[in-house]
């Protein structure tokens, strides 16, 4: 294999991984943008979403492969998204909203608590054995020149791109998106403009959680599903959000993709041992905090007078 083909191969792998990180990072960054709070249960919402998607898919896909399989795949994904959206809103309502006026540490601790509750519940209900989405489609790689790309990767890339574009359009162009941006800039003033800030916050949690469920379902396709899958994935996506500039939607996309590429190229080209792959994200975090603490696309926040 030629070196340029090898390069593109890793690029594709990095982009798919990075796209998944980006989807998750969006949830962290959107919630942070509005509430200045890190939802540490986000990774576990992802885990629940992927289980639900997996169950729906197993229930409806039937035995034989066919066009129905791909429709069932998307129905299952949508099911996981809706369930996670509801779960995210419920968690916000029960565990975070009552603490909004408390110290900033309180909702953070509450989030860590929710995270443990979700992963323990999942282990208790569904067992700790990891599951995988049964390969529904032929996953033998396609070759473009010397670069191989699997149908799964294509599927992941398409889903990620569609999600990102819709989110960006929604936030930039729709009425509710505008209200979200206004609420994140100044909640009190937004309320005085007749915006129901509480509802906007709930919608933000719903959207973030749905994106996480999508990412989880894609992980189920490529890797596997287990009760503690949200912990490391969530942490890395959080790092991606910080690297991109937390609170900034484009930043989360850039940060996620960058992190995916770093991990792939770090192992493949820089010769970082595979066992140290998970440390790449955190080294990147430390570097960015030292060099550009506000993140790549973040703005330095001035203290309000």
């Amino acid at each position, binding site marked *: 294999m030629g070196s340029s083909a090898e390069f593109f191969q890793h690029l594709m792998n990095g982009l798919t991984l990075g796209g998944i990180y980006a989807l998750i990072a969006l949830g962290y960054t959107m919630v942070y943008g509005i509430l200045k709070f890190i939802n540490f249960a986000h990774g576990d919402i992802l885990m629940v979403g992927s289980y639900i998607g997996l169950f729906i898919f197993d229930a409806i896909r039937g035995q034989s492969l066919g066009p129905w399989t791909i429709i069932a795949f998307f129905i299952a994904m949508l099911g996981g998204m809706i369930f996670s959206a509801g779960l995210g809103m419920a968690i916000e309502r029960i565990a975070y909203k009552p603490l909004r006026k408390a110290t900033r540490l309180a909702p953070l601790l509450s989030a860590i608590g929710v995270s443990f509750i979700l992963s323990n519940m999942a282990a208790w209900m569904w067992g700790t054995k990891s599951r995988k989405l049964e390969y529904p489609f032929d996953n033998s790689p396609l070759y473009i020149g010397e670069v191989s790309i699997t149908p799964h990767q294509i599927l992941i890339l398409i889903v990620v791109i569609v999600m990102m574009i819709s989110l960006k359009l929604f936030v930039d*162009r729709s*009425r509710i998106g505008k209200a979200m*941006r206004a609420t994140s*800039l*100044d909640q009190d003033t937004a309320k005085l*403009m007749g*915006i*129901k800030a509480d509802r906007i916050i709930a919608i933000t949690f719903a959207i973030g959680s749905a994106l996480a469920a999508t990412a989880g379902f894609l992980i189920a396709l490529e890797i596997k599903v287990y009760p503690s899958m949200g912990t490391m994935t969530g942490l890395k996506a959080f790092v991606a959000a910080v690297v991109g500039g937390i609170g900034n939607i484009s930043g989360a996309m850039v940060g996620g993709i960058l992190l995916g590429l770093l991990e792939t190229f770090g192992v493949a080209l820089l010769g970082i041992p595979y066992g140290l792959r998970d440390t790449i994200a955190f080294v990147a975090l430390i570097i960015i905090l030292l060099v550009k603490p506000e993140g790549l696309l973040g703005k330095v926040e001035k203290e309000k007078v």
Partner: protein
Amino acid sequence: MILLETTKLTRAYGGVIAVSQVDFQVREGLITGLIGPNGAGKTTLFNNMTGLDTPTSGKVHFNGTDITRHHAHTICRMGIARTFQNIRLFKELSVLENVMVGLHFTTGKSPTKGRVAAVVRSYLKAKQEYDLMHEQAMRWLEFFKLDGFADELAKNLPYGHQRELEIARALATEPKILFLDEPAAGMNPLETDSLMKTIRRIRDLGITVVLIEHDMKLVMNICDTITVLNYGQNIAQGTPAEIRHNPKVIEAYLGKEEA
């Protein structure tokens, strides 16, 4: 007709009483001035009438409805809008978008309820809603001759225009009553003159205006009635001429003459 009224409104922060037993009335169609030395409780009174703060005791009635403990967004939707002493625009949004945020709920009226429905609807009708909001927002910008700045970020506007934009944004919520907190602060005499004209034009739209202001020329010129607060208490109210000659007011501003 009295449009808005506070009865024995008191707001205490711990032991400090910012506003004490204030009865304050706003009559429909008039420009009402609220004046008083620094720290007299004017902004606190504003905050308590617009839902940003909740009174310790006392009541606020708007159009006959008790709104004392209503949420800020509910009060806005009933028809009360305001601006701030220190301009609070959405600095990172464009001039046009700032006004569009003010249009948020007037555009969003629909029988469909619920969060999911709202998101889906917003998605499906995004283009239509956006065009409608765009058109209405441009009309408000034209009212203030700000239409040339529509796509600028709000933070890049000159100071005087930022004040006007904040008023435009408040007006976009279609208020019955508009509260202006020191609208002339930091303005030069020329800008203040233009502001006076603007406030009269707003009144001519049928909107009741209440303003806090330190610029006495402006207050005496455009207000139909003035209320004076001092140490959190309502010490006088009347026409500009009455207020100018009220001994209590003179004392509040200049201090008591030493015997």
